[in-house]
C-alpha cells in the first residue's frame, strides 16, 4: 500500500505467531477445564521446555474469535514483566480437510487455536489451600511485593487487570509470582472520561465503587482486590465471601464502615448508592477485627481497603509502605520452598477417589482423621501458642528450602489429602490428626518440612513436630490453569482461563465461608 506515514507505523516487529502447529508440542496432561476450553501441560518437542497450552474455544460461530481472547492477546503482547505471565506464542492446529463449502483448502485454524504460556506450578489459592500449608510472614511479603510490582507495571502501562484474585496469581517453584488471566483486562487512559463496565472482578474481590454501579473507575479497582488478597493471606480465609452483590456490599460495610459524603465525597452520586445505602449506621471496624495483625500490615491494609477509590493507596505507594521495609523483610523468592505442583483438575478426581475411600473406611468403622479448621497462618501477637510465635514463621522459609522430591512432574496417581473441606492454612495447633492419612506416608516427607528447627531464624517450626510427614508439600491444593477451585463456583475463571461467563456471579462456595467468623 502506498500510504504509510513513515516512522510511525508497523513498528511492532515480533516473530510471527500462529505459524507453528500445536504438533510442536506434546500434550502431557490436562490441567484445567473450564468454559473456555481446556488447558494442558505440554512439552515442546524440540527443546523439552514445559509450557501450558490454553485452547481458545471457537465453537460460537456467530461470534467468531472470542473478544476476550483478542483482548488478552493484545494486552499480553505489550506487557513484558517478570511478574506478568508470559504469552510465548499462539499455535494452531490444522482442522479437518474441508470447510463448510467443501473447499479442499479447508481452514487451517479449524482445529483450534492455542495460547502458549510459560508453565507455572501453582496458583496462590491452590497453594494456600493445601492441607498443611502455612505461609510465613516473609513469604507473604514476598508474594505481596511481587503482586504489587506486577500490578504497578500494568497500571503504568495503562492496563487494568480487573480480575485480581488468588487463582489468577500463578506461582512457580522459583517462588516467582505472576499475574495471569487478562481476559477481562483493558487499557485505560488517565484523562479519559470513559464509561467502563462495572461487571468485572470476581465478586469477593470486587470494590465498593463497582458494586455501587460506578462506570468511571481506574487502577484503584485492582488495589481493592489486592487488599482482599492481602487480608486473606493474613487472615487465613477470604474476608468478603458474599453470595450476591447486596450481601457483598453489606460484608464490606460491616468491616469498612458505610460510605457517606464525608469518608467518600461524591459517593451519593454513584448510580446505585441509594439502593444500597445501609439503613443503620455502620462503623469502620477493620482495625478492631484485625487487631492481631502486625502494625505495618494493618496500616497497609487500611489504605488498600479504603472505600473511596480516590483515597485508596496505589500500587506504587504500597510498595513503599513501611510493611515491606520493616522486619521481617520479604524473603528472596528463590529461598521459598518448592512445592510439588498440582492442579485442580486432577485434584478433583483425586478427591472423588478419596471420598470413595473415606466412605469405605466409614463402613469399616475405621477412624478417619478429623479435618482441620482453617486458621490464619502466622499471627504476630506473640501468643504462647507454638504457631503464634512472634516474628516469621520459619516453616516455609529458611536456608534449606525443602525440595519436592520426584520428577518435575506430578504425582497425580497418588491419592491426595482429605477432600475439599480441608482447611487452608491449617493451624499447627492440631496438626497431628489430619495429615496422617496413609496415602501420604511415602510422599517424601524427608525434605525437611517436619524436621527440626530451621537454623537461620532458630525457631521451631510451628508444626511438624506432631508427626505429619510430608503433609505440607503434598497437599491437595491445586493449580488452576483455568478452573477455579471447586469451591469457586464461577468456574471458568482460572488463571489461564479467559472466560467471561459466570464471572462476578460467584456464589458462596461451600467450605469457603463456613468458618467465616470475624464479623459475628
Amino acid at each position, binding site marked *: *500500500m*502506498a*500510504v*504509510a*506515514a513513515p516512522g*510511525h*507505523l*508497523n513498528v*511492532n516487529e*515480533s516473530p*510471527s*505467531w*500462529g505459524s507453528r502447529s500445536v504438533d510442536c508440542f506434546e500434550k502431557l496432561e490436562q490441567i484445567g477445564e473450564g468454559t473456555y476450553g481446556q488447558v494442558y501441560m505440554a512439552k515442546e518437542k524440540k527443546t523439552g521446555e514445559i509450557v501450558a497450552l490454553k485452547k481458545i474455544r*471457537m465453537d460460537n*460461530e*456467530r*461470534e*467468531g*474469535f472470542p*473478544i476476550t481472547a*483478542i483482548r488478552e*492477546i*493484545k494486552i499480553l*503482547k*505489550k506487557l513484558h514483566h517478570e511478574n506478568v505471565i508470559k504469552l510465548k506464542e*499462539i499455535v*494452531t492446529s490444522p482442522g479437518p480437510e474441508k*470447510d*463448510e*463449502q467443501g473447499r479442499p483448502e479447508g*481452514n487451517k*485454524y479449524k482445529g483450534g*487455536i492455542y495460547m502458549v504460556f510459560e508453565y507455572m506450578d501453582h496458583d496462590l489459592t491452590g497453594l494456600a489451600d493445601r492441607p498443611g500449608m502455612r505461609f510465613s510472614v516473609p513469604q507473604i511479603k514476598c508474594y505481596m511485593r511481587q503482586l504489587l510490582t506486577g500490578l504497578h507495571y500494568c497500571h503504568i502501562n495503562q492496563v487494568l487487570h480487573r480480575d485480581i484474585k488468588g487463582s489468577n496469581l500463578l506461582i512457580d517453584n522459583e517462588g516467582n509470582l505472576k499475574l495471569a488471566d487478562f481476559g477481562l483486562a*483493558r*487499557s*485505560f*487512559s488517565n484523562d*479519559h472520561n*470513559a*464509561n*467502563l*463496565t462495572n461487571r468485572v472482578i470476581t465478586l469477593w474481590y470486587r470494590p465498593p465503587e463497582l458494586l455501587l454501579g460506578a*462506570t468511571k473507575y481506574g487502577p484503584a479497582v485492582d488495589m481493592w482486590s489486592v487488599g482482599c488478597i492481602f487480608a486473606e493471606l493474613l487472615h487465613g480465609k477470604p474476608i468478603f465471601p458474599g453470595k450476591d452483590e447486596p450481601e457483598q456490599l453489606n460484608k464490606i460495610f460491616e468491616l469498612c464502615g458505610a460510605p457517606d459524603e464525608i469518608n467518600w465525597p461524591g459517593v451519593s452520586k454513584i448510580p446505585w448508592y441509594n439502593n444500597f445505602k445501609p439503613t443503620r449506621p455502620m462503623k469502620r471496624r477493620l482495625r478492631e477485627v484485625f487487631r492481631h495483625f502486625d502494625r505495618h500490615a494493618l496500616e497497609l491494609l487500611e489504605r488498600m481497603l479504603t472505600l473511596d477509590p480516590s483515597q485508596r493507596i496505589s500500587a506504587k505507594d504500597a510498595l513503599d509502605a513501611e510493611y515491606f521495609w520493616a522486619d521481617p523483610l520479604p524473603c528472596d523468592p528463590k529461598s521459598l520452598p518448592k512445592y510439588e505442583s498440582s492442579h485442580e483438575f486432577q485434584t478433583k478426581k483425586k478427591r472423588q477417589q478419596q471420598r470413595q475411600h473415606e466412605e469405605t473406611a466409614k463402613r469399616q468403622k475405621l477412624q478417619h482423621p478429623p479435618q482441620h479448621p482453617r486458621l490464619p497462618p502466622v499471627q504476630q501477637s506473640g501468643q504462647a501458642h507454638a504457631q503464634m510465635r512472634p516474628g516469621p514463621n520459619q516453616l516455609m522459609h529458611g536456608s534449606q528450602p525443602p525440595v519436592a522430591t520426584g520428577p518435575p512432574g506430578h504425582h497425580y496417581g497418588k491419592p491426595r489429602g482429605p477432600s475439599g473441606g480441608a482447611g487452608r492454612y491449617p493451624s499447627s495447633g492440631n496438626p497431628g490428626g489430619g495429615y496422617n492419612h496413609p496415602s501420604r506416608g511415602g510422599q517424601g516427607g524427608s525434605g525437611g518440612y517436619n524436621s527440626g528447627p530451621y537454623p537461620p531464624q532458630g525457631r521451631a517450626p510451628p508444626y511438624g513436630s506432631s508427626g505429619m510427614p510430608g503433609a505440607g508439600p503434598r497437599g491437595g491444593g491445586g493449580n488452576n490453569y483455568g478452573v477455579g477451585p471447586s469451591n469457586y463456583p464461577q468456574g471458568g475463571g482460572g488463571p489461564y482461563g479467559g472466560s467471561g461467563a459466570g464471572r462476578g456471579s460467584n456464589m458462596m462456595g461451600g467450605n469457603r465461608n463456613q468458618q467465616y467468623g470475624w464479623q459475628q
Partner: protein
Amino acid sequence: MLAAGDCTGLEPRPEPSQVEGTLPRVLTVLSFVLERLVARNDRLLENLSGQLNGLGGHGWAMLGKSLNGFHGVRPPNISIPKYLERIYKYTGCSPSCFVVGYVYIDRLVHKHPDSLVVSLNVHRLLVTSVMVASKMLDDEHYNNAFYAKVGGVSNAELNRLEMELLFLLDFGVVVSSRVFETYCFHLEREVLLNGHGGHGEIEKALFDPAPLDDVTELPVVEDAPATADPPSLDQAVD
C-alpha cells in the same frame, strides 16, 4: 476514481434535518484512497502479467500468498464506496472503525510486502478489518454472523477471514491515539493532494470525538437489529 457524486461527504455539509442521507466523510476519503490504490495495483498486476506472459508466467505468480484467503474469484459488482456505505449503514459501527480498519489493512501490507490490495480482495479485507475494529472499539457491536450478512460472505468464511487477519497482524490490533491521528492526517492529506481539497480537518469535523479505546463495554448486541436485517447483496462477494 471516486464517483464523488454518490457521496455526500464531499458536498457541503447538509443541514441537520438532512442527516438521514449523511455519511461520515471518512467513508468518502477512504473510498478515494482505496480505489486509487486498487486501481494502481490492478494495473501493476496486469503489466506484470503482460510481461510474464511471454515467459509463460502470470502476474499472480509474483505475489505472495498472504492475502490469498481474501481473494475472490472475480471482483464483486459493488463498488468500494457503496460497500463501505453498506457496512456503515447496517452495522452502525462508529466512523473510527473505518480508520482503524484501514490501519489494519495498511499494517497487513507492510508486514507482508509481497501482497497487494487489489479488486479481488479489497472487499473481504474491508469487511473483516472493519468488523475487527468494531469489536475492539465499539460499545456495542454486531456479531460476526451479522457482519457476514452485510458483507455478503458466509459466517464461516468471515470467521476464517477474521482469524487470517488476526494472525497476519500477529494480533497487533492496538491502535494508539497517536497512530490514529497520524492516519487521519495522512488520509486527509491524500485527498487534499489529489484534488479533492476544500474540506480540511477530517478528523475534527467528521469523526466522532469518540473513543479510540473500547470505551464502553456493554453487552454485545446479539443480533439486535437496530435496523432490519440487511437486504442480501445482489451478488455475494465472491
